[in-house]
């Protein structure tokens, strides 16, 4: 302490604190930079799409797609059905298999070389571009069985599978070991322990992770292009006949020069985004990731 002067601990303006403030401002700007496109996209979709959807409510959800695309007028009914069919089909295939795969990795595989290989390949699989999956399904399924919603479901299931495996395995890891011990000590077999103790304990997290995978699958376009074909009429048949989906319609109409087609694209985008948001919200409500 300087003799005779009272202690002064106030902040002193200097180059260092200026730099600190500048960087903080930059970081804040980054946040703004992220928020702007999000708001812009959502705004465009809502302002243009909601209008289309609600002006023709409920026709937009039920009417058929005009075959001649320059014709104005609503109709994304077949696409909505198609999206639901394909997504539901993919979920029914990918989620049970994904949960089983994660059970294998965490409960049975342990540190064996086989388990390490499977885990590695599942990681690789999450990186497969969606268009590659689409081509794969085309070559193996569509060529033999023709276009169908099921082919699309298969393609989406392949995309979802590694994601479900990864998130389920994470949830299984969170189940404490002493719960399993308690079950074993009661004379429960391993499979029964997994089915009646471990999976129920991890269930909210598993469902949440699966829902997130579903939301992403619903928005996929590329795999469907090669497996589902292009239809404009309703096709509730999962296994035969070409079909369509919201994502495909958006893609097709985006490049159209007809305003009517573009309008429908916005409407479809609004519907699809709403769907994705709802599913994601449900997932988050069920289980919030630990974000400290």
């Amino acid at each position, binding site marked *: 302490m300087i003799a005779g002067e009272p202690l002064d601990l106030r902040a002193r303006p200097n180059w260092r604190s200026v730099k600190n403030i500048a960087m903080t401002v930059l970081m*804040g700007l980054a946040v703004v930079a992220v928020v702007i496109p999000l708001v812009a996209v959502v705004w465009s979709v809502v302002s243009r799409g909601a209008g289309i959807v609600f002006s023709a409510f409920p026709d937009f959800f039920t009417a058929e797609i005009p075959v001649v695309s320059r014709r104005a007028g609503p109709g994304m009914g077949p696409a909505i059905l198609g999206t639901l069919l394909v997504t539901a089909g993919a979920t029914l295939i990918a989620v049970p298999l994904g949960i089983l795969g994660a059970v294998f990795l965490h409960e049975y595989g342990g540190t064996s070389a086989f388990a390490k290989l499977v885990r590695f*390949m599942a990681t690789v699989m999450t*990186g497969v571009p969606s268009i590659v999956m689409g081509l794969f399904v085309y070559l193996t399924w569509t060529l033999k069985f023709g276009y169908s919603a099921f082919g699309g479901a298969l393609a989406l299931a392949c995309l979802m599978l590694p994601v479900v495996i990864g998130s389920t395995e994470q949830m299984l890891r969170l189940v404490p070991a002493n719960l399993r011990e308690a079950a074993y000590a009661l004379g429960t077999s391993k499979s029964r322990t997994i089915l009646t103790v471990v999976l129920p304990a991890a269930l909210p997290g598993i469902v949440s992770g699966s829902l997130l995978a579903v939301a992403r699958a619903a928005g996929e376009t590329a795999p469907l292009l090669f497996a589902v074909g292009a239809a404009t009429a309703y096709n509730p048949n999962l296994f035969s006949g070409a079909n369509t989906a919201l994502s495909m319609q958006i893609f097709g109409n985006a490049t159209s020069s007809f305003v009517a087609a573009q309008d429908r694209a916005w409407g479809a985008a609004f519907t699809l985004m709403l769907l994705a948001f709802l599913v994601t919200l449900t997932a988050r409500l069920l289980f919030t990731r630990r*974000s400290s």
Partner: protein
Amino acid sequence: MQLDLRGRSAYGDRAFRWIAYGAGALVLLILGLIALVMADRARPVIGEMGIDFFSSKRWSAPDGLYGALPFIWGTLYTAAIAVAISVPVSLGVALFVTQVAPRWLKKPMVYLIDLLAVVPSVVFGLWGVLVLSHQFGLGRSFLTAGIILGIMITPIITSLSREVIETTPASEKEAALALGATRWEMIRASVLPHSKGGLVGAVMLGLGRAMGETIAAALVIGSALGQVTLNAFASGNSMPAVIANEWGEADDLHKSALIALAVTLFVITIAVNLIATAIVQRSMKRSRGKTP
């Protein structure tokens, strides 16, 4: 009477075990099939073009000539632009959320950013085409595609970076602060050096995703042929975009060429993803090991 401890049927237990193993093997099966089937169908065009497939700039279906260089370039260039745009923003947001934002702000911010990830890619593409390129007059170019892709990969890089940054031990941060460092100086001294590896990995994962993204790119990149140029405002093409756009009317050799493109894309994307995952895992392991 001798006590019988042999137990009743363990068949159910064993059956479940086999099913779990089977699910794990399924992953290997699918990946193996993808590799085999695609490589097989790509062979014809490689037979025709040889190594020129990768080095020639001429892609002309009527002439039966397929040089993929412009598309490989387009994919890499747009991904590079996307990463260049996204990395500073993502890093800034990650730092802001972990170091600057008050606790009540953290969760909503994380939610907001994750919301970006939920918007389907095709909706981004639609917005890109009708708003960015039409309304804002940016036209179709590498730059437009790069911007869209950059927006799309930001949530991934941000959330991964966040996880890596949060593994910085509090003791290291406190050490810097205790020496009188400003927050930015503390970040530079403790957080960034500690997270370096993981951040690089996160960026590379974003890069992998940008390269594999089909639809958004396809809509705004321009679909011009033969452009290998650094002019970001020029229109060009990328591998997935070409596949999506030309598949409909392709003959057999053409299809084979498109499949070969898909295989190339597959290999590049997987390689980037694997390197990235290895880097992220190694840095997380190292950082966990350091904590006393």
